[in-house]
């Protein structure tokens, strides 16, 4: 069956990433450090001007930061490193020989790369925030429960779309690498865009109000800013439906764009090595 030929490479890569325990531990320590810094800095900012952010309160920001840090590895900050390596040493030719659709194959592997690095962080960071912090009397700094069960379910749906946006963005970047034969320019651009436009550096609602329409409409907002706004109640009612529709639109647009670019790049593919 066709699905199996994409599910298998997904699960192989996903499971292999789960075995890197030292990397998971390093990521966990880094996430805790960054959460501590960001929470204290935002607390000081909100204390300076309590009414400066009507769209996102301090309590909402705290939940947003915990989830954004736990989901940090969903950032599509580069082209798929294995595709880049394959383009460089010529083993991209093997991928072309497989009797599968190259785009779907790379998309599935990109999704596995994103999820395989995110899963251990979720397992480590969320219990710390939800269980340990309240237990030691730091409940005010902890991740709050979702605003409602419906919001939680909608958040999960939106997050699944977010993973698709991220995987489609990565595969689009991989197609650029195939086309240009070099990853540095694409990766430098992706790194810069991903950190700001996903809301990882700063929740999108905290940027100046005049930039908000653009920031919420652009594709990177769909990675985790949209699900997190649903979770903490900054996005409610009909607006949720529009936000989900926008995510679907971006998945569709990025996949179509990625497919076309990859198809034209593969027509002129030069296989290196020997």
């Amino acid at each position: 069956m066709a699905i199996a030929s994409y599910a298998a490479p997904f699960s192989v890569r996903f499971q292999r990433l789960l075995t890197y325990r030292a990397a998971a531990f390093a990521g966990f320590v880094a996430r805790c450090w960054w959460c501590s810094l960001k929470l204290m800095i935002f607390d000081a900012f909100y204390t300076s001007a309590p009414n400066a952010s009507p769209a996102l309160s301090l309590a909402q920001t705290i939940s947003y930061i915990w989830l954004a840090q736990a989901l940090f590895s969903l950032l599509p900050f580069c082209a798929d490193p294995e595709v880049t390596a394959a383009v460089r040493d010529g083993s991209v030719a093997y991928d072309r020989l497989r009797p599968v659709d190259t785009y779907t194959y790379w998309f599935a592997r990109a999704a596995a790369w994103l999820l395989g690095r995110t899963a251990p962080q979720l397992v480590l960071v969320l219990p710390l925030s939800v269980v340990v912090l309240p237990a030691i009397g730091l409940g005010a700094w902890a991740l709050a429960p979702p605003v409602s069960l419906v919001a939680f379910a909608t958040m999960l749906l939106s997050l699944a779309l977010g993973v698709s946006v991220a995987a489609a963005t990565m595969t689009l970047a991989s197609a650029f690498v195939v086309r240009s034969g070099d990853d540095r320019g694409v990766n430098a651009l992706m790194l810069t865009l991903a950190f700001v436009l996903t809301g990882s550096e700063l929740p999108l609602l905290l940027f100046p109000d005049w930039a908000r329409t653009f920031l919420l409409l652009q594709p990177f907002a769909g990675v985790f800013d949209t699900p997190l706004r649903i979770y903490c109640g900054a996005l409610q009612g009909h607006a949720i439906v529009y936000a989900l529709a926008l995510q679907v639109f971006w998945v569709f647009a990025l996949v179509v764009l990625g497919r076309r670019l990859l198809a034209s790049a593969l027509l002129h593919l030069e296989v290196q090595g020997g």
Partner: protein
Amino acid sequence: MNALRLYGHYAAASVRAQLQYPGSLLTTAGGQLAATAITFLGLWARFDRFGQIAGFRMAEVALFYGFVNVVFAVADSITRGFDVFGPEYVQSGQFVRLVVRPRGLLLQLFGHELRLSRLGRVAQGAVVFAWALTQLELAWTPADVATLLFAFSGALAMFCGVLVLQATLAFWTLESLEVMNVLSHGGVEASQYPVSVYRPWLRNLLRYVLPLAAVTYYPLLSVLGRVDPLGAPAWVGRLSPALGFVFFGLTALLWRVGVRHYTSTGS
């Protein structure tokens, strides 16, 4: 041949090698510039919305930001040898080649590479620092200039110490420890804001364990002519950068322990 001249040869060779690929150098330096400029965008957006943090204006925080980014970029450019020490020297057994040469080990590792791409980050930090100076209109005294230079060298020593520590741990772990990024990159992030905004546990960590506050926060407060909100006397900032050198000295001692523990590998 004295050590400084030898390092000059290492550095010149590294620079020549990188200039062979000017396009690649420009791309990576531009990437560094863009990636760090973006963090400043985040900082600017915070001040645009909230106005100030714990009594500090944006220009004052920008001075912290510019200073620590320039220092860290310089440290990052000269410590590549320590960053890749685990995989490139310990795992492969290449370290033996350094040991048999009649020159200091730390010197040889500092000579591993002088990464010009970090100039992108130096430029970005320097621009922010210069902008902050135009906004603040400080009355400079010779003591202020001396404090700034002392703080720069102390901070450079401290960040190099973090990398020496990372390389030392690689004698046992054989890998490059990503956890140490918390102290280097995480340290830069932490010292962009006044230490007074942090809770006591984190503040004390930054003051007494990793002497980051001693090489950035206190000396810059002296230059700004501000009183420490936490009540440290004014002379602290004039002397505290010395702790950066103490930190480096301690990591150099640990490094010797690591070298004695080293057993060769490879073929």
